[in-house]
């Protein structure tokens, strides 16, 4: 098991190296440069050249790449061109927002998706099944920015139940410890701040959950339907086992295997930043910052963030693979 984990982690090195090369080549092939975003519209060509020089962008690409790799080896991802702050600091500042949002969305998606998917399979072909299938289709089809707009119009503007944007009410003066606002409130016993942060998570959480929810519902439903028709289920029923035991031990456990994989992948996807949701709800996570970095041609942020996200993605996949052995004793990690 340990050897397996070490081997998987070592595989990260060539992956990251390849990724860094590709990313570097792609970013520097984009037209324009960061100076346009840094300078005033009226800056002269000389000024622009001076800024490029000061950022080291006038040097040959291989020297720039070499410098990036040298710093990377020292775990230094450089400083953002647009904010002048170390990339790691920028990531650390925004990642908790993205994690909180991801967790909220996944709790909603899993908490509603698995029960509904299971029920739909049990009521195969009946009204609940049809409603669930078409409802989940809607979840995939509806653009997130539109859903966000509708949610806000109804639940924030009209009914005033939830705040329409941000992570916490401005001016609340909550104490920050970890950057995870909900957790911070609990740690510092400022439960009202925690509650406030929780309320801010609801609308973006629903918007972001719409797609994972739809996928989880459909995967659970399909998977349960498939397992229900398996011989071992029939055998278990024929043995006279109680229905609840059959459902729990034989149906759900087997049906959850592909669902668990997709949950892992979906979580990884959400953690790499939800550009639209974060922008529509001014949530300040890594997704909206990445989108901004692309228009600012903020190379260090783009390189750094994407490399960190790649590492996280590999780690999450590893965790999913390891969880297989817990769900299914037949799968042994070697």
């Amino acid at each position, binding site marked *: 098991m340990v050897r397996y984990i070490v081997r998987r982690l070592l595989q990260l090195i060539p992956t990251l190296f390849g990724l860094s090369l590709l990313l570097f080549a792609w970013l520097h092939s984009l037209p324009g440069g960061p100076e346009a975003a840094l300078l005033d519209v009226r800056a002269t*060509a000389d000024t622009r050249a001076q800024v490029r020089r000061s950022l*080291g962008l006038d040097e040959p690409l291989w020297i720039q790449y070499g410098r990036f790799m040298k710093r990377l080896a020292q775990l230094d991802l450089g400083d953002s061109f647009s*904010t002048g702050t170390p990339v790691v600091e920028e990531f650390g500042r925004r990642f908790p927002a993205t994690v909180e949002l991801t967790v909220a969305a996944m709790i909603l998606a899993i*908490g509603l998706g698995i029960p509904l998917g299971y029920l739909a399979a049990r009521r195969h072909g009946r009204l609940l099944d049809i409603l669930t299938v078409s409802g989940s289709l809607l979840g995939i089809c509806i653009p997130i920015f539109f859903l966000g707009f509708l949610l806000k119009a109804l639940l924030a503007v009209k009914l005033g139940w939830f705040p329409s944007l941000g992570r916490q009410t401005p*001016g609340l003066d909550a104490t920050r410890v970890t950057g995870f606002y909900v957790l911070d409130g609990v740690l510092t016993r400022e439960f009202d701040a925690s509650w406030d942060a929780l309320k801010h998570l609801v609308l973006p959480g629903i918007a972001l959950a719409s797609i994972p929810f739809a996928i989880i519902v459909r995967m659970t439903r399909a998977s349960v339907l498939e397992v229900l028709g398996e011989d071992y289920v029939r055998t278990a029923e024929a043995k006279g086992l109680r229905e609840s035991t059959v459902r729990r031990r034989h149906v759900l456990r087997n049906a959850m295997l592909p669902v668990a994989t997709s949950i892992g992948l979906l979580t990884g996807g959400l953690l790499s930043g939800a550009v639209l949701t974060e922008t529509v709800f001014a949530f300040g996570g890594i997704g909206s910052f990445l989108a901004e970095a692309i228009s600012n041609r903020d190379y260090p942020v783009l390189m750094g963030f994407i490399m960190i996200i790649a590492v996280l993605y590999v780690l999450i996949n590893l965790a999913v693979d390891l969880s297989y052995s817990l769900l299914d004793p037949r799968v042994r990690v070697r």
Partner: protein
Amino acid sequence: MKSRKLRGLLALASVTVLALGTAACAKSDRDDGGSGDKDTFVFGTPGSPKSLDPSLATDGETFRVTRQVFETLLKHEPGGTKIVPSLAESYEQSPDGLIWTFNLRSGVKFHDGEAFNAAAVCKNYERWYNWTGTYQNTNFSSYWQELFGGFAKNEDAKTPAANFKSCAPQGDLKVVITVDHYSATLPGAFTHASLGLHSPKAIEKYTAEGNPTGEAGKFNYPAFSQTAGTVAGTGPFKYANWDKGAQEVTLEAFDGYWGSPKAGVKKLVMKTIKDANAGRQALQSGDIQGYDLVAPADVSPLKDAGYQVPTRGVFNLLYLGMQQEAEPLLQKKEVREAIAHAIDKQSIVTSKLPPGAKAADQFMPDTVEGYSTTVPKYDYNPEKAKELLKGAGADKLSIDFCYPTEVSRPYMPSPPEIFEILKANLQAAGITVNDKPMKWAPDYLDATDAGKCPLYIIGWTGDYNEAYNFIGTWFAVYDGGWGFKNEKLFADMATVSKEPDKAKRIELYKALNDEIMTYLPGVPLTSSPPSMAFAPNVNPPTTSPLTQENFAEVSYK
């Protein structure tokens, strides 16, 4: 029959729904301390500041925040463009425009308790003038260089020569600033947000921190400019916190403020909300109490719903740029004139801009001193445009037209929609238009600057009330964006920029506007007043055409 598992799953779903429901109904103790109370005012801004020290910045979002914290020697009158005293009670300029004497206000304190006096003013000017190393980079000192030239010791051959000569205190409350030659940036420079005055004690701390590293491939702002604590001005608000993750700058009322009005709220939060729709919904749901750059389509609905939507006076200009090297036919005056006659500016004003917008007939709005009433006019006349094109042998003109996407500027709320009108106008005059949509930054800015766009739309919001801030920007020297060399025009621009007598300068500007519009390098299109929106229970600040609102005026009704 239901299994226990099924019940469990149903319970899980119910708990999720229940949690959502209770979150909606519950009320926290601390809500009263947030934006729901009458001590805190939250204002939505379309972008984030870059630095708490205005001298290191060039962008309006930084200045919007720093203007509440710092004051300058002079300022623009509230709601207008006239230059009036601020930290200086009065000032005199020598006839040659080289010596500027300021009589300072007494009893003014900085946020850190230091006294404001002549020595403090000079400490600021000397800080800028003596910048070395990375501070001489335009990343940090762009506006100082534009307003006062270079430094005591320039370290780069391309840095302009210093125009600032000296700052000398005469007693405690009188200061004399001397420049090398008169420049049309004066006295406007003394109002400029980037030259807001810092506490001498804070400046010593900045110096102690040393210069930003300036290591190749790295770019960082000095630490003092990124967190509240060190930076101190004399304004009605002081910095309390900059939460970069939440994209919020929190300012606190400064009890020791000398002037009037003192801050009308205890806390002012500037929160970045990039999306205009999100801004409107946040205002409607009570999460914020005001925001800037209201989309033109939202102005009437918000007003109808009882919100206040004050509109600024116009102080910007949108124009159609023409690059004569990218399309040689544009070198013919008849072709440029034909394009000017082809465009229906009024239809842009009526259909795409907020109320109060105006069609432009020269390269500055009529609020700037030096605006001319005698410029040649090019009325909307598609038939005349066709004739002119035919006469110039350009009746089959096919031209690339660049426009930016995904951007909204105060002078052009929706560039693609404005482009569509212009395109239809030009095609009606027989010109074939090839669409070249581009992302604003860096693609569009780079392409227009490098002279790759024969036709393009762009604009400018004035920094201060000096015509040179508009026309000097574009027509003082050869510019890649226009691609023409008109030596007479360049020489006339040089003359006006050296004229220290304001009355004479204004006459020269008027003549220059006539000269520019006779030559017709491009087509001035419109000036539009950006709108702000405020909750019904708020007393909003006086709108400023220069977007220099003073948020100390904000209070709750």
